[in-house]
């Protein structure tokens, strides 16, 4: 069973079998409005917790997506490059951004669970 965490910067990260999947929250896509462009990290890129990893753009805003944990990018959701609107339709499902390895499980301790995130955006 995957475990899902959230960041204050509105990323979600779910862990399943040592692989983490990262995306932006439904709340974040709502705030951004119609997404027109997604720039993904390169496979193999090594990410540092809190560092900018991807960019999501609407017509009027460009938002960095930060890595919630340290690790290496193992896969990216290339379908988003051709169809950025997927992020609006399914931010926390099919529109995941990248998958990455987990270097330090302790880093999950600082993240929020679903209830805490709901309280954060309330």
């Amino acid at each position, binding site marked *: 069973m995957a475990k899902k965490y959230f960041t204050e910067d509105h990323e979600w990260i779910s862990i399943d079998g040592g692989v983490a999947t990262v995306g932006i929250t439904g709340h974040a896509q709502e705030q951004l409005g119609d997404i027109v462009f997604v720039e993904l990290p390169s496979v193999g890129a090594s990410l540092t917790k809190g560092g900018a990893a991807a960019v999501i753009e609407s017509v009027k805003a460009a938002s960095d997506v930060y890595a919630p944990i340290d690790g290496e990018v193992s896969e990216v959701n290339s379908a988003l490059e051709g169809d950025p*609107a997927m992020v609006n339709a399914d931010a926390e499902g099919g529109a995941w951004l990248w998958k990455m390895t987990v270097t330090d499980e302790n880093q999950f301790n600082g993240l929020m669970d679903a209830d805490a995130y709901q309280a954060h955006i309330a």
Partner: protein
Amino acid sequence: MPVAVDVFADRHIGPGRDDERRMLAALGLPSRETLISATVPDSIRLSEELDLPAPASEHLALSELAAMMGENRIARSFIGQGYHGCHVPPVVQRNLFENPAWYTAYTPYQAEISQGRLELLFHFQTLVTELTGLPIASASLLDEATAVAEANGVAFRHHRGQRSEIVLAGELHPQVLDVAMTRAEPIGLTIVPAEEGASIGDKTAAVVIPWPDTYGVYGDHTDTVAAAKAAGALVIAVADPLALTLIEAPGHWGADIVVGSMQRYGVPMGFGGPHAAYMAVSEALTRLMPGRIVGQSVDSRGRPGYRLALQTREQHIRRDKATSNICTAQALLANMSASYAIWHGPEGLRAIAARVHAFAARFSAGAKATGLGARGERFFDAVTLSLPGKARKMAAAAEKAGMLVRKIDDDAISVAFDETTDERAFAQLCAVFGIEPASEAEAALPALRDGAHLMTQPVFHECRSETEMMRFLRRLADKDLALDRAMIPLGSCTMKLNAAAELMPVSWPSVADLHPFAPKEHAPGYAAMIGDLDRWLCEITGFDKVSMQPNAGSQGEYAGLLAIRRYHQSRGEGGRNVCLIPSSAHGTNPASAHMAGLEVVVVKCTNNGDIDIADLEAKAAEYGDRLAALMVTYPSTHGVFEQGVRLMCDTIHQHGGQVYLDGANLNAMVGLARPGDFGADVCHMNLHKTFCIPHGGGGPGIGPIGVRSHLVPFLPGHVFEGTDHAVSAAPEGSASILPITWMYIRMMGAAGLRRATEMAILNANYIAKRLEPHFPVLYKGRSGRVAHECILDTRPLKDSAGVSVEDIAKRLIDYGFHAPTISWPVAGTMMVEPTESEPLAEIDRFCDAMIAIADEARRIADGALPRDNNPLINAPHTADDLAAENWPHPYSRMEALFPAGADAAKYWPPVSRIDNVAGDRNLVCACPPIEALAS
């Protein structure tokens, strides 16, 4: 009382004396002076009138300037070096360049009322893609030199800053190299000459190929391109666009980026500018492209429409992460160049190019037959002759015969032929060099292109008669709303009158037809005019010296920050690299700071919109000996004269920093306060705002900087003057539009300028007063007054009626207005700046429209109109809507289209609301060739 018919200030300032009394009465004030003394802090208020010449009438000023510029010597130029004689088609000169419908328009942010110039800019981009063979083109850059610097920046960012070298595969024009060097160093790029391709490696961000080089020679770069590709470096070509009509497009031989100047496409040399530079890139580099891109999208009815695309690349959104600080480009000049290409079509352009080349080929052949060495095998328009020890003498002989050539050094001279060269001039030039002119010669061009596939798009074939061309330009102009139709109350943009008398000199041959590198003795008129401007602008701002070189406000910011950086370095304090910028600053500020190699630290604002002085003091102290500068706009971007400005400047100085004052709001200060007096060390002046240069539909602008004496040594230099650190290609930047500002100051005089400022403040306060019951005024000064602009809070309507600030902006179109600045500096608000030039009747018409819109919103809030089908959300309404059989709205056609009553002079938007999302998801920035359209 006798009527003074020739007092220009009375013509420039919109409200008459009676209007002024009525506005003051509405504000409950006895006099203009009571308003000003309540608004402008005493601590900075100027106690005396500026020391400027007494105002001249329009006709006197014109005759003075004509006499002055008449001292310029207009010799036939063969100098070349990036600037070429050309014929401005009279149909373009009169119907576009000298037509206020084109030159008084604003940057096309409000797409629905800008379709005409957007369409022409789209044709410009199509032209550039056709010439370069690359798919993505932008709507112009500032000049060739900055375009090369921008291209280098694209390469640097493409490699995410990991590759730090630019390799030159041949010599660029000296002024281009100089600017590229200036721009490279602060971001950590180095520019190195190629040594037989050996230095291209894994540090190489890009290889720059001059096409041709500064001697006019087209080299064989096959191996260089292959080496660049093998090393993963980008290939940048700097290409002459007239030659490209004949020779193979760089995009077809491996260039990833192509840049150059479009000047010779129908824009006068103008002693250096303005003209448009172009940039085209491969698809992979689209999002790194600097500057405006016009994209095609659809409107809410599915009709095609144009808009500015991918704005998230730009400084107003991305701030210090933007691809460049460029904002204003050269829209008017790009549109002139596009018109030149539409007028001539591909056949005409190729014929002009072929004629130019034939002169060069005949000259080269004649020279060789005479025993003179000519450089290179392949060339287009320029021939470099080897004249050991004789270059100086020959150049002098040519000058004596009324011709200017380019003396490269003591041993070489280069001559460039252009559209204006004729047989007589050719024969005269040959005679100077003792060359027997060849009657014909073989072409010496590099690989040729197939002309049948060049510019096949219909637009380049539909305007061969002047009648068609005239109507084409009129049709486009009619789609747009410019100052010749209505007030454009854009906060922070100062859309004031661009008077006819100010504009007329720009077309004079004595102003337009001078080469920027003509010998100094040919340009005494320019020297005198620029000398006057230097003195006058110093007097107005309180500085010691002004540089006219920066050819846009963004360039002024960059030049000013660079001066500060070099000042610190000269004192052994190169470690000062932190630039404090308030959160309310214009996005260009952080973008410029980043380009100048400074680290941006944001200073907070307080709830009332002022800069948080405690935070400023804390950060100045925290960064201490790393503090380079504060960038501050005054009056603030919130439209308020902050009381603490002197204190802020003192604080920065105490910590060893310098104060950069963003002059965007100078229109609120002229004659009332001087930045140089209250603590600024450097300030740029947007001559296209405060000093009447028109916005041109998105450029040209000019951003000269004034500095205090300690920064004078660090002003931009120029290779032509034997100095360095240039920021623009030409020593005096866009020199040919400086006469506009000269005329304005000469005709207004000190009292007129001060009254203009005071009336700008009165107009803004009158609007604030009238609209406050309907839209809260967000920020005010201590006395409850605003400066020359005011921010109206429209956010309450979002809550009560679901009406967005954008809905209000689009509804204003139905009332015949260009919207104020929206969502800047505060999201969901409107910033209104009427300027002094708007008459009271027009200001009242605007206020009435805003009040009526507030009423419409109220009806939505009350439920009288549905939230999803009302005149605001459906705005703007078009003629098609009116004529449609089906009217699916719960309000009348009259309410939709004539909300202020029937009006024969109504402005009709050609499209309904443009779909921004569709345009950004699917970028279309050029018309495909006819073959692609057919398939």
